[in-house]
């Protein structure tokens, strides 16, 4: 399949077992598609074309529909992500509290816009429509942990921390 599979065959076996288990639990039902894609992304970090085909076969869903669903929902990633993920919330409260300045600082430092990964593959930048962390606006999620009231200087600290 891909280089990742051959390089880490053992861990990937485990991941596949998890995905297969999820497919079986839902009785190979076509309506489990979104749930299974979540499981795939959890395991591999993104949705590879080969994997999409595999999932479609298992659930009896044509490739066009699998691809349609995978591209419709913004949380599904079709490209591998960087080592670290930084999500800047751009919900209304964060927008009012100048989230754009945070994106600007990240762009200045790493030359990436939301949806892009830094040239060295270290940091992927995403924006969220609203994390529901409005009381801590502007909010940033660094590798899954939410940080509130982030300033542009705070962005510098975050990015420095991701270097090592």
């Amino acid at each position, binding site marked *: 399949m891909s280089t990742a599979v051959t390089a880490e065959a053992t861990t990937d076996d485990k991941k596949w077992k998890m995905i297969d288990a999820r497919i079986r639990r839902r009785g190979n039902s076509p309506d489990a598609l979104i749930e299974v894609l979540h499981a795939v992304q959890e395991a591999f970090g993104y949705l590879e074309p080969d994997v999409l085909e595999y999932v479609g076969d298992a659930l009896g869903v044509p490739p066009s529909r699998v691809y349609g669903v995978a591209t419709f929902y913004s949380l599904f990633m079709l490209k591998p992500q960087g080592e670290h993920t930084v999500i800047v919330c751009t919900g209304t409260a964060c927008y009012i509290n100048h989230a754009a300045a945070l994106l600007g600082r990240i762009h200045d430092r790493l030359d990436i816009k939301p949806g892009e990964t830094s040239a060295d593959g270290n940091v992927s930048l995403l924006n969220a429509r*609203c994390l529901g*962390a409005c009381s801590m606006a502007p909010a940033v999620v660094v590798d899954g942990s939410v940080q509130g009231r982030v300033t542009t200087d705070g962005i510098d600290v975050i990015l420095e921390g991701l270097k090592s």
Partner: protein
Amino acid sequence: MTDVAERSETKPPVPIRACANVCEAAGCMSLDAEKVLEAIRQRIDERGLDDVAVKRVGCLRLCAAGPLVELPESGQLFESVDPSSPESIDRVVDALAGAQTGRATAEDPFFARQVRIVLANSGVVDPEEIDDYIAHGGYKALTQAVTTMRPYEVLEEVVHSGLRGRGGAGYPTGLKWRTVAKSISPDEKKYVICNADEGDPGAFMDRSVLESVPQQVLEGMAIAGYAVGASHGYIYVRAEYPLAVKRLRLAIRQAERANLLGTNIADTAFSFEIDIRIGAGAFVCGEETALIASVEGRRGTPRPRPPFPAQSGLWERPTLINNVETLASIPAILRNGATWYRAIGTPKSAGTKVFALAGRVVNTGLIEVPMGVSLRDIVYDIGGGIIGGAEFKAVQTGGPSGGCIPAADLDMSVDYESLAQAGSIMGSGGMIVMDETSCMVDVAKYFMDFCRDESCGKCIPCRVGTVQLYGLLDKITRGEAELEDLTTLESLADMVKSTSLCGLGQSAPNPIFSTLRYFRDEYVAHIQDRTCPAGVCEMTSAVSS
């Protein structure tokens, strides 16, 4: 029940005199609330206090000042508790021992002005312990309903309560239930869906309810299932809310074990099971028919109505779709009666509404107020006014489907009709306060950017119209527009509103309409004077000079 037995074994049999409730909703969690709880527990042990306790609770509402700890017995609140500071922890433990070291909540307008029905148990019960919820009256309504009431009696109670959908549109909940109950299913199957796809940016009410009182939502769903004749429910929740998902999963397991969900609930013939479906980041899935498509594993695109989901929804079966807050209101209505509920709020908008107060206001957080309260009370009394004493400019309600209400209307009553009259909507409950640093044209552009991005692309007015509207707004904010563009903007906005397929497109122009209505001078300033009065927009001409 075993949990209670275990807990009492590890604790000495001294009655607990005071308890420190540590907020473990997402806001405080991200500020190390778990460490706060551990530090307090450790300090209690060190000081040998055996008649006090500490426990995890849901949202304590004043999110601006987290991590929060409350001592309900003595009515004290501790803000920004620092787990690494012994003094900070000792202040809490001193209060547990009897001192008055915290902020008194009884007189504080942020707390005193709120009326809690949906959030009555938020910040009171442990969201991960069903026993704690039961000890606070939980599941009483469900067991009472299934053992002593007929489904239609439950239904009529909800009709009489005057409860209206809290997801935004305000359709009478009882009528919706009645339609589903009356609809005939070919195989007798009907469904209840809890819409927890809280997509409006700036809204976090449903997240907090799910994280704080997940059992209450399940109870409401089961009651709804009983009333309409459904035996299967789905909660469609955003993937962006991992803590809510975790607690819902746990709550479902615990409720099944306690025979309050699953087959033969409370040893009756009524069975009801609940499954979770996780979204994948599509705003349009908050729309009923799009949500159904997504639960069925398809692209979340809406379809024309009728048939309404109440007649033909999930798997083409009658389906009741209610929002989180609506369902969370049900147990209290059944426990206290429809008349009690109806007496709260205004004649046409009964009960309370939960709002997520955010933006440039001092007390950001979660509030629950009776319908009919004035906006001024919310912003200045409960909200504590604008940060830094700045000038209030507008409050935005209803997210991308809503509008901005100006200072002149601060005294208006907050209910479905008044908000609609003012050109906004109740919406799901996001309330963003803006001060003079916000440019209203830029705000309209912000929401249009959101809508053009989230448009599913199925119908042309929304797919193309939102892009064109965004382009016009962008032109205005860059100082490149002419006055005739304003006319085009208005007629195009009208067209998108009246010809789009679903609520997303139909309401997408609302932020434009309301900002044009109240802040037209700002649009004109951008166009004629090539200036942004708030100093937000970078004018092309200003850049070159």
